[in-house]
């Protein structure tokens, strides 16, 4: 009998019952909640007279709607000027209060983007199932936790039953072997993977990211990669447990106690795919060949090397793809054949659940240090992923580097990744963004998004256009994500 993949093991360990028709009930260990996708679920519980099955499995924080300027944030919920946004955050507070769910409120230092907060607290652990009403829950798979986004009906289902009705996914392995070049990061790996397999390439699969380049990445880098598994269509991204995983978790507030630690580590060490495990699909990339990536269109698969030109729809594989490319060029205001490095920018956003952790900010700060944001950039903002990331960054002096270079240093939240708060692009504005989606209107009505790594975003802010971060005179100062 063939061995098991990491995904197979996690699935089996959480199987409560399975039916002949292929559907199964799986047990959920950790449920993260935020203000946008939970109110209707709590309301459903209330209407049916149900209570949460297990209160300690839940952890909540507001992130999508929170303002990021200090002036507004210092007033707490009252500082949220948009009434509808404020009501949504207040509703989360009230629901957590009445259902006795732990919440890091708006001005709690532990507040932040839910996918930054979970791992940072050790609330995401290897071997867990983790769900949240948010597609970027894939992030937590970096800890060998079976994690994926769910809809609001499923949020209600998990609250009421601690289980999810699920069907087993297929297994895909993405192997990235070799060493990344200087200035090339986890973000470039995942964008290159999406460029290769397409935005639906992972639909129906759990993707395990493996290979020496993955092993060399920090937990932050692995989270960046798993975070964007959903942009390749896969709800689940996974990385096997190793020493890097275990060391990251040691001493975190929700991690196992000192007495439980040795047994936990023993169990976690089993969370790797067996050597003879079967994958339904295997994709291989050579790390050394990956260049800094920039998206040019309105889907994350519309991505090229920074040294490349904007692609031509005439060279597309089929008519549907060609039509999509033509529409994307029109929306983005670009022409086929244009050099990526000739694209002028208006705004720069460094943040989001993809790239707002300490390592991301360090990489961006290295590029920004001693330089100035270009005159044509109207706004360059850095939004840390949590209050604790912010504090750590400030302790390292990163905030000063950014501010001196002309970046705005903001309060934690989802911010301009999806523009549910006041941080948004105006129509036609072009942005270099470290977030995860370049869909039409994602960062603001008519806004134009180009996805890049933190180092590439910082360099774009300095030059006012895209540049190859590897061309910087002190490229040696750029570390790979190790």
């Amino acid at each position, binding site marked *: 009998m063939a061995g098991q993949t990491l995904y197979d093991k996690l699935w089996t360990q959480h199987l409560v019952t399975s039916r002949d028709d292929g559907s199964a009930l799986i047990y959920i260990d950790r449920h993260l909640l935020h203000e946008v996708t939970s109110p209707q679920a709590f309301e459903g519980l209330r209407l049916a007279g149900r209570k949460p*099955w297990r209160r300690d499995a839940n952890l909540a924080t507001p992130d999508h709607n929170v303002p990021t300027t200090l002036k507004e944030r210092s007033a707490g919920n009252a500082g949220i000027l948009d009434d509808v946004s404020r009501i949504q955050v207040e509703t989360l507070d009230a629901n957590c209060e009445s259902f006795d769910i732990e919440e890091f409120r708006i001005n709690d230092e532990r507040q932040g983007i839910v996918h930054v907060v979970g791992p940072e607290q050790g609330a995401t652990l290897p071997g867990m199932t983790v769900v949240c009403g948010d*597609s970027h829950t894939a992030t937590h798979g970096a800890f060998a936790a079976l994690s994926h986004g769910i809809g609001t009906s*499923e949020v209600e289902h998990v609250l009421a039953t601690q289980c999810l009705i699920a069907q087993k996914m297929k297994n895909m392995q993405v192997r990235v072997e070799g060493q990344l070049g200087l200035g090339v990061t986890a973000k470039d790996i995942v964008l290159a993977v999406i460029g290769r397999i397409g935005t639906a390439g992972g639909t129906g699969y759990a993707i395990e990211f493996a290979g020496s380049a993955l092993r060399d990445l920090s937990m932050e880098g692995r989270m960046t990669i798993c975070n964007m598994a959903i942009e390749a*269509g896969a709800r689940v991204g996974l990385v096997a447990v190793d020493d890097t995983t275990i060391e990251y978790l040691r001493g975190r507030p929700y991690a196992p106690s000192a007495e439980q630690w040795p047994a936990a580590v023993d169990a976690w060490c089993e969370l790797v795919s067996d050597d003879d495990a079967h994958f339904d699909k295997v994709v291989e990339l050579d790390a050394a060949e990956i260049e800094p990536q920039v998206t040019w269109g309105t889907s994350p698969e519309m991505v090229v090397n920074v040294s490349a030109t904007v692609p031509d729809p005439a060279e597309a594989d089929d008519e549907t793809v060609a039509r999509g490319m033509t529409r994307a060029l029109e929306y983005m205001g670009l022409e086929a054949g244009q050099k990526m490095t000739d694209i002028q920018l208006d705004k720069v956003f460094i943040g989001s659940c993809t790239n707002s952790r300490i390592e991301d900010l360090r990489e961006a700060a290295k590029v920004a240090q001693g330089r100035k944001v270009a005159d044509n950039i109207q706004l360059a903002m850095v939004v840390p992923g949590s209050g604790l990331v912010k504090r750590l960054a400030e302790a390292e002096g990163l905030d000063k580097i950014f501010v001196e270079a002309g970046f705005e240093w903001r309060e934690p939240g989802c911010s301009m990744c999806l523009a549910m708060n006041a941080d948004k692009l105006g129509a036609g504005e072009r942005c270099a963004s470290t977030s995860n989606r370049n869909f*039409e209107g*994602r960062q603001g009505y008519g806004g134009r998004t180009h996805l890049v790594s933190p180092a590439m975003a910082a360099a774009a802010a300095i030059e006012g256009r895209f540049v190859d971060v590897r061309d910087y005179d002190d490229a040696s100062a750029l570390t790979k994500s190790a």
Partner: protein
Amino acid sequence: MKKFERLNGLVAPLDRANVDTDLIIPKQFLKSIKRTGFGPNLFDELRYLDEGFPGQDASSRPLNPDFVLNQSRYQGAQVLLARRNFGCGSSREHAPWALDDFGFRVVIAPSFADIFYNNSFKNGILLITLDEATVERLFQETEANEGYRLDIDLEAQTITTPSGEVIAFEADPFRKHCLLEGLDDIGLTLEQSGAIRDFESRHRAAQPWLFRDA
């Protein structure tokens, strides 16, 4: 959930691949704490020529005459014909809520994104996956024939075209059963409370660190 058995419905074609849930319902409308009222903002950025805001009176906004759902021949459509990877991106259940609120009961496409697929099913919307060639043919027939309707029978798993052609589709048995019966799946799961409790005690014994209230 809402029952789905059979539908004879007008078809509207949305000729665009990779339609993401941001496009189905933009983020500013996600601030609502209700499940209803999203219909007027379905495909907001495609449907209107101006930027939409929550709480607006949609009837006074300028419509985009080129957008398919604004054309008179597609008014009252209940079946949406779409291209590959429909519903990709964000997990927002507001996307199927908006489709449902607008009046769509069925979406036909060559493929759907996973989370959207689950969310639609939870709201009694039937998603039908057909091969690219068949979808292409349905696009051509829909566009060529005003008033083009499909008869969709979930029990029989068939689509019947106006010419009498019968197209079979796959349906997963559990979802089909729930849709036909209109079952409340939380209620169904809670019938297995004993099995969940048993699992939970074994799980707690094996990995006590997963339980903070231990």
